[in-house]
């Protein structure tokens, strides 16, 4: 059973969400301020955190920043709708997805499942389905067995979402992948209205990987179509 940590200062809301998610088959813990969240997250008891931005003591961004120093624990951020700046900051800090709040609990459960599915598929990849393989392109190498990414031999830390997005782009290197396709293949869900999470993950990936050795952009944005990993045949 998957264990979820709900971090939100609204105690009532947390209680109701816990009830809802338990019926959906999750085991749920709660934290109502930033420090408690951080402490609980670091126990290793949880598979995923649902993290609200507005919290006392430490806000959601601070918690995420602190957490990402030594953990790739999946994080789903809840942000106030319309506060685009918040979601950009959240994703660049390494959140796996974000949902504007207030949100439909059904959507929340679906997003949680999508992240967990992605996470599990990756950790179990080697054992169950396809044999582990190594994708290499220029200075970049991905080992699907150990889920590691190395750039010029140096390992690059990545959240499971960033890893998934990069893997899809790398498999399709030289071809344009639409946002809808990226969303389905990498995030495991349909692209929705006002959905900018793919763009944010891409911006985070670009920041981590930099441009190609010859100065060319590593991942290109193709106007109104999608993204493309630069590859010369």
């Amino acid at each position: 059973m998957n264990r979820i940590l709900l971090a939100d200062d609204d105690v009532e809301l947390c209680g109701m969400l816990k009830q809802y998610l338990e019926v959906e088959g999750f085991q749920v813990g709660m934290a109502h301020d930033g420090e408690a969240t951080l402490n609980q997250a670091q126990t290793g008891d949880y598979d995923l955190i649902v993290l609200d931005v507005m919290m006392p003591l430490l806000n959601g961004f601070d918690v995420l920043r602190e957490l990402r120093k030594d953990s790739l624990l999946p994080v789903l951020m809840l942000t106030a709708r319309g506060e685009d700046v918040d979601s950009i900051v959240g994703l660049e800090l390494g959140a796996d997805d974000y949902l504007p709040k207030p949100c439909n609990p059904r959507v929340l459960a679906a997003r949680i499942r999508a992240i967990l599915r992605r996470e599990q598929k990756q950790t179990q990849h080697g054992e169950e389905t396809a044999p582990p393989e190594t994708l290499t392109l220029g200075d970049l190498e991905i080992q699907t067995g150990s889920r590691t990414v190395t750039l010029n031999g140096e390992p690059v830390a990545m959240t499971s979402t960033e890893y998934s997005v990069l893997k899809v782009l790398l498999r399709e290197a030289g071809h344009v992948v639409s946002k809808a396709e990226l969303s389905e293949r990498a995030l495991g869900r349909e692209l929705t209205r006002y959905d900018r999470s793919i763009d944010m993950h891409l911006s985070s990936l670009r920041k981590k990987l930099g441009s190609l050795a010859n100065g060319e952009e590593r991942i290109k944005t193709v106007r109104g179509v999608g993204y493309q990993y630069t590859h010369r045949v």
Partner: protein
Amino acid sequence: MNRLFWKIFLSFWISLVLFAGISLLAASLFLEHMRGQDEMESPRDRHISYIEEAQFIAENDGIDGLKSWLRKLDHREAIPFLLLDEHGKDLLERPVSPHLTERLNRKQRSSRHMEGGRSPRHRDLIQLPKGGEYRLVPDFQAVTLNRVLRRPRVIAIPVIVAAIVSGLVCFFLAGYLTRPIRRLSRATHQFAAGDLDLRIASTMGGRRDEIADLARDFDHMAERLQALIGAQKQLLSDVSHELRSPLARLQVALGLARQREQHQANVELDRIEREADRLNELIGQLLSLARLESGTQLSHSGPVDLAALLAEIAESTDFEARAANRQVRIIDSAPATIDANETLLRSALENVIRNGAKYTDENTSVEISLQHDPEHTGWLLIQVRDHGPGVPNDMLTKLFEPFVRVGDARDRKSGGYGLGLAIAERAICLHGGEISASNEPDGGLTVSIRLPLDQTK
């Protein structure tokens, strides 16, 4: 007491007094210097010494020497000295006035009467060694202002003094006055661009005049505005939080109800969910409208590729519209990059296009074009055209007001234009652009957005 008033008044006044005083002083010093040098105290003494000089030159250099000496003298002296031969003609052939001739004749006659007496007037005779004699005669009546002013020493000294004194005073005065005003105007621009922390009174040094007062007033105003804007932002975020918390609980409660009810009250729950979503959307729109009206968001701006932005919005709205058998297409696009706040511009364009997709008839498409405005150079024109019923002509300008209703049944059903177009209008205005709507003759509404290429306007 108006201190700047006194600064300007005193500096002009003192500089004029200084100018007058220094030029008088310089002139008298110059004259004294000349007197000291030549021991000339009056025109008569000068006359006598010139005669001696002329006699000396006549004996040594002859007539040519005399001519050039006379030319130099004429240049220097305010009083014209004429050197007349026995026929009464000037050596330099300057005109001799009849008064002078008459006076000379009178003198000659009177000297003849005083037979034998060596009249002092005989001393003005200059004799050339080769024969011939001249008289050096001052023509006092020919001393005109014009002639005085034309002598370089007479005119140059005061002019130079005036230029230096007034130049120095004005230079420092102008700098002193305009430097802090320039700083103030820069500060105003920066403040308007969103730098609300800016304060300038401390940069005014030890000034205690109107400009320093103005700087302090600016700081007071900045303080007050910052407090007001801060309070408004705080209010907005409080409202956002306070209204949304119950909404968030409502939505979870709804989810719990669905889990329990097992499809028994689905219609009602769907209704509650729809209304909750609508409420949520309205709160979001109200907040963005309020943020736009406070107008401080433009500070986060950078180059935006409009064609790419439109293509992206068209793609995502098309994706949604297809679910309702409608399309969104770009029919014309030109490369264009402007300096803008991408988030604002995106929401403006998205609202307009989404609105078109909402009202266009089934199986038709919303057509978007981006071009350089053929009627106004330097402007971009974005047009979004739907194939819906359009709106009554008298409503065209009201379309961009918050919560306007066009007033037919279809509108009530779909919830009206709401705030989308009002948000678009504010966002476009913040970028110095304009937005308007018009009905197409063959049906449908066109929303035209004009944006200046150069954002400095």
